[in-house]
């Protein structure tokens, strides 16, 4: 049996790393991620957890160390956020193209500028096309669970693709809740020792990885990667089911509430999904036909599943916690592609909210739903994203 503890999202991830029997951790601290690596270092220091911990001199070095270690065939972990993730950028592509099944926790914090410590998705979205599976947890419990699931999916020989487990800075990383921490024996039922299945570095048989790749083979390598990523959809389904059977906590790539017969559906990710679920439940009680569809796996994106859910819906309200300045948010674009895939003709509106730590609270979600219903009733198309939590009087129009 597991132990029920009061943990925040950061500590929950550290416990997930320990229970996943990660052999090597390399990291550089950055707010709001630092407590993850502090907790891991402390667990190792107290001899509760045996692993190699490398204190790197930068995030670039931390991910380089992960790539080096993973290339020799060990299970690895790192964590970062914002500026730190930006500094890792060139290595995230190297890691995924080398088909190394590393796992990284991203504690989302706005990319500067302006300089901020607080949550939005502008950091993780810089990584959306770098070839990593991306899972968005909404609570400390999910942060722990998704970390364990991530290893099983990334290491699967049909996938061999690294995973980022994303939690929202402060709204999950520093949110203390009840967390069921699996015991060592319980965790063992789900996650065993690391087995290397692809090519790895061996001093008895030296070779070079990630050499200069000619145009004659580059496209085929990228396509192989894309196929690995696409295969992750089915493998995620399998592992979510297995995890549910072992621990009783059920997940899937999209998680929907109250979408049957819904006229308006909110599509969102991360911690705001909890708040959206809460608001939808209240609105349902007052007779409003609303629902919420939460994207758990942003990569690979569950286009088919989402289009199935949105069939028959009148208004789709997509909330991006990032602004794609001059265009539409990344989640909105994915939703449009999914709707096109399923030939769904609903109204779809793009909302921007929660930038740089602004709280997405009950009122924000209520405003999103009201606006989508209002525009939908007038049959208006979405000409530009709607900045729903903007303080209009503070905007400068001609600076």
């Amino acid at each position, binding site marked *: 049996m597991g132990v*029920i*503890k*009061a943990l925040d999202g950061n500590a929950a991830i550290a416990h997930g790393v320990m229970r996943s029997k990660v052999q090597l951790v390399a990291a550089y601290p950055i707010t*709001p991620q630092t407590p993850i690596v502090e907790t891991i270092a402390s667990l190792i220091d107290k001899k509760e957890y045996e692993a190699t911990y490398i204190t790197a001199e930068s995030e670039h070095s931390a991910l380089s160390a992960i790539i080096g270690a993973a290339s020799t065939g060990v299970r690895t972990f790192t964590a970062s956020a914002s500026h730190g993730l930006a500094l890792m950028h060139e290595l995230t592509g190297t890691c995924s193209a080398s088909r190394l099944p590393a796992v990284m926790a991203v504690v989302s914090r706005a990319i500067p500028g302006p300089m901020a*410590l*607080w949550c939005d998705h502008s950091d993780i979205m810089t990584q959306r096309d770098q070839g990593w599976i991306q899972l968005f947890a*909404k*609570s400390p419990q999910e942060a722990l669970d998704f970390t364990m699931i991530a290893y099983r999916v990334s290491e699967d020989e049909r996938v061999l693709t690294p995973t980022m487990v994303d939690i*929202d800075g*402060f*709204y*999950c990383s*520093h*949110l*203390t*809740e*009840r967390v069921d921490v699996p015991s060592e024996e319980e965790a063992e039922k789900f996650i065993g020792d690391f087995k290397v299945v692809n090519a790895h570095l061996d001093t008895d048989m030296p070779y070079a990885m990630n050499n200069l790749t000619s145009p004659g083979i580059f496209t085929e390598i990228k396509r192989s990667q894309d196929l690995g990523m696409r295969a992750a959809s089915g493998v995620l389904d399998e592992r979510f089911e297995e995890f549910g059977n072992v621990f009783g906590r059920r997940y899937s790539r999209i998680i929907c509430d109250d979408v049957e017969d819904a006229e308006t559906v909110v599509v969102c990710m991360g*911690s*705001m999904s*909890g*708040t959206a*679920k*809460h608001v939808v*439940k209240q609105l349902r009680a007052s007779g409003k036909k609303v629902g919420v569809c939460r994207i758990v796996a942003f990569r690979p994106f569950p286009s088919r599943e989402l289009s199935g859910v949105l069939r028959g819906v009148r208004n789709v309200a997509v909330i991006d916690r990032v602004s794609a300045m001059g265009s539409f948010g990344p989640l909105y674009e994915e939703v449009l592609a999914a709707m096109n895939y399923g030939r769904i003709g609903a109204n779809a509106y793009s909302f921007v909210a929660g930038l740089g730590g602004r*709280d*997405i*609270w*009950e*009122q924000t979600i209520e405003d999103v739903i009201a606006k989508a219903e209002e525009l939908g009733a007038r049959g208006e198309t979405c000409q530009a994203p709607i900045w729903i939590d903007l303080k209009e009087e503070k905007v400068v129009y001609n600076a």
Partner: protein
Amino acid sequence: MWEFRFYSRGGQGAVTAAKILTSAAIIEGKYAQAIPSYGQERKGAPIYTYGRISEEPIEVKSYVYRPNCVICFDTSLAEIGIDIREGVRPHSTLVVNSPDPVYEDVFEKVFYLDADKLTHEMLGEVPPNVAMLGALAKATGCVSLESLLEAIKLKIPGKAGEMNAKTCAAAFEET
């Protein structure tokens, strides 16, 4: 569901208090959450912390804007324009670190305790947070004193934990 807003200054231990409260509720088998709003912390600066306790799983992950219980560590926050009455629901409870009751016209129930004085007498120059938790448990019954003391000893091991637990129990009695 209990929805708490903690008002304090940096160094008064409200963030830790909210975490201990969460831990106490979880010990009792309840659902709970503590969510601090971090800024560039420094001693004396206003600090806002939020919490929830419920018999059901708590889905909402945002700060608390419509509390039914306010915990005020420092009444001098009013002097810098912080209004602890903001957003409170009807029939709310106030727990305040003060020798006298305040805002009895706004809150249905006002529980007051000079937590600074009690803490100073029992523990010395340390934050009044465990005393405030004792007062909160007495005021609301949101957690039992027993589980609160257990949570304190879990957070602060050894002799220091025992002394903090004693202070919390004394505050519970005195409120």
